[in-house]
């Protein structure tokens, strides 16, 4: 798989720190850059701050210090409209978080209609094509409660894509799924990566990281310890903590 690097930085996080209100120091001076079209995978033990890091990238969590730029826009600049910025950054959650009171099609169409105020016909056409792409053309009128976990997660991906984002964030998208459904979600993510979507993925799927990632990050106790290519990351882990972690999970 050959990636074309245009060289521009989609996400630049510089020295970010995060303290939760209870005093928990969840991120310690984390810096990372994601280029356009790159797939970044974040790995680390439970409680290491992976979710916190990901959620700072669309400001579901605010940072205590440091700076974040999305597509050359400073997230914390005075004139930055966070809602506008979030339209550019899709997010997929571990627990799907579909809207249970709406059909699959309505879930996908809501934000483009209400937030982007796009034309209804165009939005519906787009939503249908996205749902076809994730293999759910026969499920459009169903409610989330009538779907399997894998189907729900694919709807969630289609819902995020409906906003035509430039960046997609995934927080353990397959962790809540039965093993036989993990593949169908990973396949959708792989095809997204192939299309050149910029992605940051928190996951425990080492196979996915090895195959799809351009770079893999290792976090522990709020610190970003390793930022390397998958080959070096998995086959030649230099950091002793990473080597220990990999020996435990692989």
């Amino acid at each position: 798989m050959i990636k074309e690097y245009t060289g521009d930085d989609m996400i630049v996080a510089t020295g970010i720190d995060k303290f939760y209100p209870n005093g928990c120091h969840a991120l310690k001076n984390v810096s990372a850059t994601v280029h356009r079209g790159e797939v970044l995978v974040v790995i680390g033990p439970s409680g290491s701050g992976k979710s916190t890091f990901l959620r700072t990238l669309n400001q579901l969590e605010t940072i205590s210090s440091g700076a974040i730029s999305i597509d050359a826009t400073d997230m914390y600049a005075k004139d930055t409209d966070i809602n506008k910025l979030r339209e550019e950054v899709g997010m997929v959650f571990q627990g799907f978080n579909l809207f249970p009171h709406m059909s699959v099609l309505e879930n996908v169409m809501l934000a483009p209609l209400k937030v982007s105020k796009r034309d209804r016909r165009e939005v519906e056409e787009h939503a249908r094509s996205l749902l076809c792409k994730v293999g759910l053309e026969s499920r459009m009128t169903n409610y989330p409660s009538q779907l399997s976990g894998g189907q729900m997660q694919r709807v969630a991906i289609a819902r995020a894509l409906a906003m035509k984002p430039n960046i997609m964030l995934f927080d353990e998208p397959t962790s809540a799924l039965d093993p036989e459904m993990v593949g169908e979600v990973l396949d959708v993510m792989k095809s997204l990566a192939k299309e050149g979507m910029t992605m940051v993925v928190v996951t425990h799927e080492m196979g996915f990281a090895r195959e799809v990632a351009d770079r893999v990050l290792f976090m522990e106790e709020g610190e970003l310890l390793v930022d390397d290519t998958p080959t070096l990351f998995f086959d030649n882990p230099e950091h002793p903590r990473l080597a220990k972690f990999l020996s435990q999970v692989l």
Partner: protein
Amino acid sequence: MEKTPNKLLWHGVLLAILLGVGYSVLLASQSIQYTWRWERVVPYLVNTEPRPVMSPFDGVASISTDGLSVSIESDNSAEPAQVFNEFSQLVVGDGDMIFEGDVVATTNDWRLGPIMNGLVMTLKISIVSLIFAVIIGLFVGLARVSSNPALKYLSLIYVEIVRGTPLLVQIFIFYFFIGTVLGLDRFTAGAAALSIFAAAYVAEIIRSGIQSIPAGQMEAARSLGMNYAQAMIYIVLPQAFKRTLPPMAGQFINLIKDSSLVSVISITDLTKAGREVVSGTFAPFEVWFTVALLYLVLTGSLSWMVKLLEKRLANSD
């Protein structure tokens, strides 16, 4: 396996208990030599008594040939003749001399008696208060979950004050203090007190409804670019609404019952009408049983409507 109760047997027991209660009420009233006179209550529900139609001035009656209308020619020629054609029984004859206040005819049309008028007043004040309670309660509930300290604590103080003082005292404060300052009439003061009171409970119901929706719903909505208001309107409130229906129904029923307290500021609602009628009929048991039954009809039909709505919403997903 759990034993299923014998349905027939226990239905029999139920019936026996109900009959027993009814019979003991009968015995109790006999023991105090009470004679039931239900018919005395009827005129206070609907008034079927013939009503007199009276002449407004002195004059001479002339009856039309078909006997369906009577006109009174005034002695004072400057005044136009008065024509009556809605009556059921004619009292005067053609050419009779009529004096002011004389009964010309009687009508039999039904009118609501005082108890029914009281029921209408109770219904009116309950509906008005209910609408305002929901509107105020929604905003206070939203303020309760807001991250703005001013909104959060103002709403908290409001809820605590209203829930910590008796409604009766609040009604007096509204009528005698706020009502005097703002020049409110009885009805407005009473409805305002009820609305403010019920809104505090509605706010708490809405707050807990909002908080029962998983945080992930708000996060998903925000991550799609929705602002806080859009996320509330399209995602959180519709889901919360469904969960708040049962407690909301209970609150509305309370509101109807609590409305009986406005009788203390001389609003002639169902309860006050009952009190007035008791003194006129000497049939206190019948009157209070009737009043209770009418409240039951109001609250019963309300909970029936909410059940219907709940079923509707449950079908939608």
